[in-house]
């Protein structure tokens, strides 16, 4: 029972990460591999607020959103000047920078040991200590963020983002402020990643830098690509597939020591297979492969 609840909570967190990254990689059409960095910023903000003081649940969630959103804006402002592939290198640089800070800024982040003893905050006397209660909280936050992303992608602003993805020059010629739209979309996506990080820290009660590496960013990106870039439902499906299928390896009798490697092998192969045979993902709207080239 508890194992099932644990998987559901982890799934909710990854679904939030995938839907938020989908806003950047799918709707906006630029690839970022810094999403785990914003996830880390949210997690560390929560960890510091909860271990150094007794901030309420709402306060930690809001502060995690703000810090990750501001960090996202700080990265986006210079990075949007870079071309597609160099934008990716810029985000990779930011990811490694945050990873280094988490690993080496020991007085604040606890270094390699990380921060432990993070308890969930309370709101109106309710504290989601039990897995069932935390699942309710995670589900509520997931529904809220998915609804916001869905509304955003189907709003005039979302259509503008998609138009920019297809032809940036055309969008600019229509009088759209491309830079402002990009910064806003990037900041919102990063803020949601920070929110997911906050939930992760409060749920696991222990965070270390190893949970927020480049590979974690690749993992989140794999979810978006597998599910389908540009589709909110695709991101949710991608997260479900990549969280649930590797979990099934546990029941096939593989030793725990090799389970992590098998999981990474599966993610890598899923990404390659998806790019080879279905570049638009399982239910994606945006084809980067043959179809895109034929346009």
């Amino acid at each position, binding site marked *: 029972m508890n194992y099932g609840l644990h998987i559901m909570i982890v799934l909710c967190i990854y679904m939030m990460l995938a839907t938020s990254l989908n806003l950047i990689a799918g709707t906006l059409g630029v*690839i970022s591999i810094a999403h785990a960095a914003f996830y880390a910023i949210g997690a560390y903000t929560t960890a510091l607020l909860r271990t150094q003081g007794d901030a309420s649940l709402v306060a930690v969630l809001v502060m995690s959103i703000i810090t990750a959103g501001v960090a996202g804006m700080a990265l986006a402002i210079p990075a949007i000047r870079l071309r597609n*592939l160099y934008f990716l*290198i810029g985000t990779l640089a930011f990811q*490694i920078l945050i990873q*280094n800070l988490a690993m080496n800024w020991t007085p604040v982040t606890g270094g390699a040991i990380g921060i432990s003893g993070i308890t969930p905050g309370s709101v109106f006397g309710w504290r989601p200590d039990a897995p069932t209660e935390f699942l309710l909280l995670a589900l509520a936050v997931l529904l809220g963020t998915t609804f916001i992303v869905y509304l955003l992608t189907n709003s005039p602003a979302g259509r503008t983002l998609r138009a920019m993805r297809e032809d940036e020059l055309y969008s600019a010629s229509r009088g759209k402020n491309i830079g402002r739209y990009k910064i806003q979309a990037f900041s919102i996506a990063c803020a949601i990643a920070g929110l997911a990080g906050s939930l992760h820290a409060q749920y696991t009660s222990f965070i270390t830098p190893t949970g927020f590496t480049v590979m974690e960013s690749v993992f989140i990106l794999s979810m978006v690509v597998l599910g389908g870039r540009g589709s909110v439902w695709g991101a949710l499906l991608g997260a479900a597939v990549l969280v649930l299928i590797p979990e099934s390896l546990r029941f096939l009798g593989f030793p725990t020591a090799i389970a992590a490697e098998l999981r990474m092998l599966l993610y*890598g192969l899923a990404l390659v297979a998806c790019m*080879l045979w279905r570049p638009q993902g399982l239910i994606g709207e945006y084809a980067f492969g*043959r179809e895109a080239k034929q346009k």
Partner: protein
Amino acid sequence: MLQVLVTSIPSGAIIALVALAFAFRYRVFAFIDMSLPVLFVIAPYAAHVCIHRIGLALGIACIAGIAVSCLLAVFLELALWKNLRKRAPATVLLLTSLGLYTAMMAVLSLAFGHDIRSLLNSGPRPTVRLCAVAVTDVQILIVVCVAAIISSLSWAHNHTRFGAQYRAMANSNELARVSGIPTTAREMLVTIVSALLLAIAGILNALDLDLDLTSGFQPFLWGIVAAIVGGFRSLLGIAACSLVLVAGLFACGWYAGTKWEDSILLVGLVLTALLIPRPDLHSGGKGDKE
């Protein structure tokens, strides 16, 4: 401090090889191949297997390691990249390479585990003292090998038929093909040269330092930075930039602590990318082939 700067030369030389391998491939194929660190890592691991399981001598094992790396590159070119490049834009190629890197590192991890290994016997290496600076025999070997390789590559790039064809393909692959250059064969040659450079860099790195699975990613990252800052068109520029970059990093590490080296490097990269006006870096330029 002088010792730190001298020690940075072999490390910079290895980064130069990685940067050249990356740039050599990038100029023709126009996408960032994130799976290249695997070619850097697999060569010393194959050499390690040849030494400790088959019992080959070090030199032969190193050649075997380099051969394994090149064969893997050729296999990937034939089985994957050759067809995928024809129909997919740079983004798809990049994501595929990212998946390939993740999958192949998982396979290597399953095969070799996470133990740190060494190609040479552990223990202090014989050193030579040059003006109050100690240098090991391996470090001298690295500098000599890399200098010879870069000189040969630069000469081949500027004075041979292959070099001319390569430059034509780097400018426009399509135009080169129409002009009668056998682009498919030359692309295979570019793949092999790039893998060769990475494999040699991996072997030299493993001779100087310990060998572990994650040792490929950092040199690759530093190599990308050196190639971007040095400019893709100049092989000697990339090599010089690698040396200066690593010397600067080692000097910063000397004052601020080695743990901040990557952070300093990446902040430097972002500042360089933003402050130096380069059409291939910024929006609106001609560098994007997608």
